């Protein structure tokens, strides 16, 4: 997992010279495109990469709720859509 590189689109545009061996995998987190240069990344590593591991969150993965116990067995693939939510103030 140490080779996993997470960067955003803005970063990529800034460093166009940056070459990838493979096309990066595009996924969508809360409507934002995120690119990963990795063949295998699970939800647990995604949460760490996004610095969300300290937060109480829930994840919807392509329309399905994934329970916390299944995060490490759920691997991302091209085009996946994730919603990551928290509880906020509301009436």
């Amino acid at each position, binding site marked *: 997992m140490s080779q996993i590189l997470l960067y955003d689109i803005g970063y990529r545009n800034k460093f166009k010279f940056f070459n990838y061996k493979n096309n990066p995998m595009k996924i969508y987190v809360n409507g934002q495109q995120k690119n990963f240069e990795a063949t295998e990344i699970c939800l647990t590593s995604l949460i760490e990469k996004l610095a969300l591991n300290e937060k109480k969150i829930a994840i919807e993965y392509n329309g399905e709720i994934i329970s*916390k116990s299944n995060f490490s067995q759920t691997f991302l693939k091209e085009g996946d859509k994730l919603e990551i*939510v928290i509880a*906020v103030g509301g009436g």
Partner: protein
Amino acid sequence: MESDKFLIAGKHYSSRLLVGTGKYKDFKETQTAISESGAEIVTVAIRRTNIGQNIKEESLLDFIPKKKYTYLPNTAGCYTKDDAIRTLRLARELLDGHNLVKLEVLGDPNTLYPDVVETVEAAKILIKEGFDVMVYTSDDPIIAKQLEDIGCCAIMPLASLIGSGMGILNPHNLEIIIDNAKVPVIVDAGVGTASDAVIAMELGCDGVLMNTAIAAADNPVLMAAAMKKAIESGREAFLAGRMKKKFYQADPSSPTSGLIK
């Protein structure tokens, strides 16, 4: 009044005031106001988390501990049954299998008036999935009854528009809903000040849910304390049974005999 407990989805609560956690200046104020209100059930919204933000960012859950309060996740901002259902499934996962939810499906962004057709459809599905659904609805007695019949555990008609503070605009509809209901009826939305909460309780509502009336007061903590008393006072007045109104006929409270001559 210790014995006058209030039952929702099989659980007893002492406070008949339910409060929202939105619109406060900061989490500290949220915490103090809610503590002062005496509320045991607090609503929360479910929203996308910020990505790539401060890891140590404060969280509502740190200030309103789940151990102390019953969380009531809502579907505020949902305009379709599908969005409301998705939101509550996420909420259940987020809150470790918690089933008690507040369903609201809105029909219009200006009035935030509920879309009762979508609400009924969403409620049916959620109840089938094991949720205990407290449902925000219009003050239409027929819809209120239908929502009860499909299994909602509390009916929550508006008193006036969400966040408007216009008070109880149609007390008679609320009375019809209360008379017909076998589940708790909780006024949700529209209360602006303590007297509105008293009126709702005197009508026989089982509780009142409010957010803006407290959070948007000049002094939210003091208003929270006022609302606690208003709810208790209105409830006691309802249970005590008010005197009959006598129109245009006074009745002295002091003896009419024994006056000095």
